[in-house]
């Protein structure tokens, strides 16, 4: 198909800019795409996309799932491009495509795996026309950008091309209803031990039936609105094609067509199980055998920026990404903290430094986050660092946490000094992606174990 001259100018211009930026040792993740999309807003629709285009979206888990899918496909001989460097909005995706295409806008690889931010769906999906779309879930996220799940659902729904095959979370009554006429395969997790219809979470994003408005009856919930529900009008959770029934010896056990399949599970949280389920369901539906997927998955590790653990000063230290402004993801980590055995101290550095640089962070989201999970006797100390520390203090008090256990400091890196090491044997650090610099300082201080609780000695 003939392409406009502006497309070729964009490709050549971007390639020169990317080269220049790399010479200057700068990441060319967004800027080249941003500039070229200003120069030619219709740019994205003119690429001759690779034979297989897989898009991965959703509120939580899309980065992990798209990385898993990329690894599985690579290990099985596919030649892929992906945006694992982090640019998941239209400008990042444009940067990737401009960088990897030929001057004619074609690709030498056979497959593109694109992580797509939900808010960029309108500008990306109709242009790149993915053959496959994996949606991990739709949950409450940043109120400023994403408003609410109904808004994001409608936004995604109207931008999914007709022929795109969907891989959907059948336990999510919101995202499982996307593009109802498109072909689809559902993944999910069976009821796990101890789960009931009740939820301890503050947030439930779907309470009433979207068809008739009556109250939904949940048969069980994994967390928030993720579980199985039905309505007396006949509406309900769909049948699951790939269903995880639990984990054994570090492996996810997934039922498909009446047979058990086993895949390495990089971590044991329910969100990890969902991520594995999503990646496996796509790969198997795409045409790979369980053996091919399982062998490729054996190499998969959790990215250290999301989860890490080490020992310092005789204490076990667990580091977990908790995503500020994202109450469901952060509540998941609160739940994980609660379940961890032993006497614990929690360090929280969740300030949104991106917002904080320009304005004053809206902390409303912490009132949707389940800090009530921190009331247990085994949580001995909670140390909060950052400009909004006093807000967390109030939130923790309202959650019912004992005042004596809460410590605050305005400087995130001072949190280590406030620890009382005699009280606990495990430290869990919850941090936001914006706070990696502080996290690294905290980790370094912990590793130099004489720093723990220096102010208290």
């Amino acid at each position, binding site marked *: 198909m003939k392409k406009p001259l502006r497309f070729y100018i964009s490709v050549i211009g971007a390639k020169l800019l990317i080269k220049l930026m790399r010479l200057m040792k700068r990441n060319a993740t967004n800027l080249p795409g941003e500039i070229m999309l200003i120069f030619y807003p219709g740019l994205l629709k003119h690429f001759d996309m690779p034979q297989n285009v897989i898009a991965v979206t959703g509120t939580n888990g899309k980065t992990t799932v798209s990385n898993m899918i990329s690894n599985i496909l690579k290990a099985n001989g596919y030649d892929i491009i992906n945006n694992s460097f982090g640019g998941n909005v239209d400008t990042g995706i444009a940067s990737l495509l401009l960088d990897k295409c030929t001057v004619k806008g074609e690709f030498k690889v056979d497959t593109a795996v694109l992580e797509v931010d939900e808010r960029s769906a309108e500008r990306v999906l109709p242009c790149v026309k993915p053959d496959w779309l994996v949606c991990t879930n739709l949950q409450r996220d940043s*109120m400023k950008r994403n408003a609410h799940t109904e808004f994001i659902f409608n936004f995604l729904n109207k931008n999914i091309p007709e022929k795109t095959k969907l891989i959907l979370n059948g336990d999510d009554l919101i995202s499982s209803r996307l593009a109802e006429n498109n072909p689809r395969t559902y993944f999910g997790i069976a009821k796990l031990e101890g789960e009931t219809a009740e939820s301890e979470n503050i947030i439930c994003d779907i309470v009433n039936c979207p068809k008739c408005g009556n109250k939904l009856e949940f048969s069980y919930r994994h967390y928030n609105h993720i579980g199985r529900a039905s309505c007396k009008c006949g509406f309900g959770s769909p049948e699951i094609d790939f269903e995880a029934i639990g984990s054994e010896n570090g492996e996810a056990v997934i039922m498909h067509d009446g047979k058990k399949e086993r895949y390495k599970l990089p971590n044991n949280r329910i969100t990890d199980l969902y991520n594995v389920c999503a990646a496996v369901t796509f790969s198997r539906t795409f045409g790979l055998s369980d053996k091919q997927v399982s062998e490729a998955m054996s190499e998969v590790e959790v990215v250290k920026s999301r989860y890490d653990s080490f020992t310092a000063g005789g204490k076990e230290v667990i580091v977990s990404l908790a995503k500020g402004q994202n109450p469901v993801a952060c509540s998941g980590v609160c739940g994980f903290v609660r379940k961890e055995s032993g006497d614990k101290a929690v360090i929280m550095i969740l300030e949104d430094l991106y917002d904080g640089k320009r304005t*004053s962070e809206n902390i409303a989201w912490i009132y949707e986050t389940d800090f009530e999970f921190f009331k247990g006797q085994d949580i001995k100390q909670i140390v909060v660092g950052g400009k909004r520390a006093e807000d967390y203090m109030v939130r923790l008090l309202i959650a019912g946490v004992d005042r004596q256990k809460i410590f605050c400091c305005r400087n995130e890196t001072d949190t280590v000094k406030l620890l009382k090491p005699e009280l606990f044997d495990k430290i869990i650090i919850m941090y936001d992606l914006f706070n990696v610099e502080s996290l690294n300082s905290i980790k370094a201080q912990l590793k130099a174990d004489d720093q723990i609780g220096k102010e208290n000695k």
Partner: protein
Amino acid sequence: MSIVIEELFPEVCNLFGDSGNMRYLKLCLPEAEYISTPLNQKPYFADNDVDMIYMGPMTENTQLQVIERLKPYKKRIEELIEKGVIFLLTGNSHEIFGQKIIDSDGTVVEGLKVTDFYAKRNMMKRFSGLVLGNYEDIEIAAFRAQFTEGFPGEDYQPFVQMTKGVPMNKKSFTEGYVKNNFYATYLLGPLLVLNPFFTKKLLHKLCKKDRTLAFETEVVRAYEIRLEDFKDKKVDIH
């Protein structure tokens, strides 16, 4: 006689941490009777006296359902407003009580028409940011995040006379409106936690005397830090 506080439709009107308002109120005023009415039930206020009604923000679809649910009680709502019952309506929940919501495609959603207010909605534009200003003798510091611009009609009494921030429409530098004790505000999230002196004012209206807030020292400290932050010229409004 105990104070009765009704929370309307909390399972669906709770979008932006606004449920924190009632959690905090319960800690500040534990002796009050709290009634939580789900969307599919008749509101308690329809047949009973209440001292306060609270409703938080909701999705645009839910707004349609809530309007239908409250339509039969329009007269009763007007009566309660005249009687001075406290209504605290945060986020877009107060749009329900106005004349209409006009969408950018021209679609009109008819409201309960209890007040002269109307809203213009554009789902592709989000008005977010901080709000700093005064309500009577107290400073209010809070946030908004919405798809609508609000127009309260002629001769309204603003809830917040703003000094900084994103106003509810481009023509006025005000936020929300008040009619007797009917507080209609786009401010959202845990407004009562963030604004302890406003909460004290509400509690005084409810109890007819001064009350100490739950965790008052800590809540006031967090408020003072936020005020200082908001007043900082380097702090942008969004």
